[in-house]
């Protein structure tokens, strides 16, 4: 696990590197634009407003995040993550034939998907990294395998059963039906997933195994 946490730290640095440009770009361009259009007076106020609404945003979502991670801890210990993982076993084996023979790997992959489904971001990432490690075990490859691509695409189009953070933010902004988006979120996630995986399969056929 020490290996994992140092890897995560390095990668977060890469992410921060990208955000250096995005974040400072937004601020610098906003200031330049308002100087050109002569509206820079509003900018100082907007920083203060932003700081205020950032705290409101955090306050709105923090309670729900904590409540939900408490509930999910109960679900995890009660074996619900495992039960859902078992449910996905057959489908995942078909999507990633290379993982089918390895019980440990198959377990890590399906537990990762299950954790994603329940919105357990904190649990899903270590499980996913463990799955990637097992997929590359003894191979030391530099090029992604077909199964790795499918697995990463599954993770980038993760379906979440209960969109808690968004519902909390909607409720804070005075929505009369914060959870009303749930069915749409499911439909769109499934559509995204089907397109991503189908395309990966088409690439697999076209490009051959790496």
């Amino acid at each position, binding site marked *: 696990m020490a290996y994992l946490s140092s890897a*995560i730290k390095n990668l977060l640095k890469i992410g921060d590197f990208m955000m250096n440009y995005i974040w400072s770009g937004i601020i610098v361009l906003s200031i330049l634009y308002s100087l050109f259009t002569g509206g820079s007076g509003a900018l100082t106020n907007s920083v203060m407003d*932003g700081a205020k609404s950032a705290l409101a945003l955090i306050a709105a979502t923090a309670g729900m995040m904590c409540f939900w991670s408490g509930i999910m801890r109960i679900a995890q210990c009660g074996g619900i993550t495992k039960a859902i993982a078992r449910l996905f076993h057959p489908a995942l084996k078909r999507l990633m034939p290379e993982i089918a023979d390895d019980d440990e790997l198959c377990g890590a992959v399906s537990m990762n998907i299950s954790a994603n489904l329940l919105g357990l971001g904190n649990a899903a990432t270590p499980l996913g990294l463990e799955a990637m490690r097992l997929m590359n075990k003894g191979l030391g490859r530099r090029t992604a395998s077909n199964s790795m691509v499918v697995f990463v695409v599954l993770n980038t189009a993760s379906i979440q059963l209960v969109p808690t953070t968004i519902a909390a*933010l909607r409720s804070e902004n005075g929505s009369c039906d914060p959870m009303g988006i749930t069915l*749409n979120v499911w439909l769109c996630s499934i559509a995204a997933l089907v397109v991503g995986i189908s395309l990966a399969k088409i690439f697999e056929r076209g490009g051959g195994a790496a």
Partner: protein
Amino acid sequence: MNIGVYVIPSALLLIIANAMLKRLPVFELFLQGARQGIGAVFKIMPSILALVCAVSMLRSSGLLDFLIGLVSPILQPLGFPPELFPLALLRPVSGSGALAVLDDIYKSCGVDSFIGRAASVMMGSTETTFYAIAIYYGSVGISKTRHTVPCALAADFTGMAMAVLSTRLLGG
């Protein structure tokens, strides 16, 4: 049509009843999990603050409206609300940034408006794609990701287009 109302109560019932049947220390486990949740909130707090302030400046400088106006002639005929463009742009790169833009959309367009609901669905059905790709491949030293990026972006694109379409058809 409103499944959302039943999702949380039935999930709670299932999870707690299941744990009670297994005689788990339910309350203690809840506190453990909630404590982890507080940790997670503290961890994302600085980046949320940074991006909400930046987006607030982007809005009040008029640059955001200018950019939306620029893409509007292309997106409007496609039926894609140009107000959602900044969210679509930032979503694959930064989770905190997307949340900041989402909050801004709620405040400027209304949370229960068509745009507000489509933005919610968009946020919920897509992921921080580039972050996930970097962290998963980087952790095992893989540099050639082959068709991962096109597939993941196609998935994101589908999710975003479907968010607008499904909100229009189902009313969200």
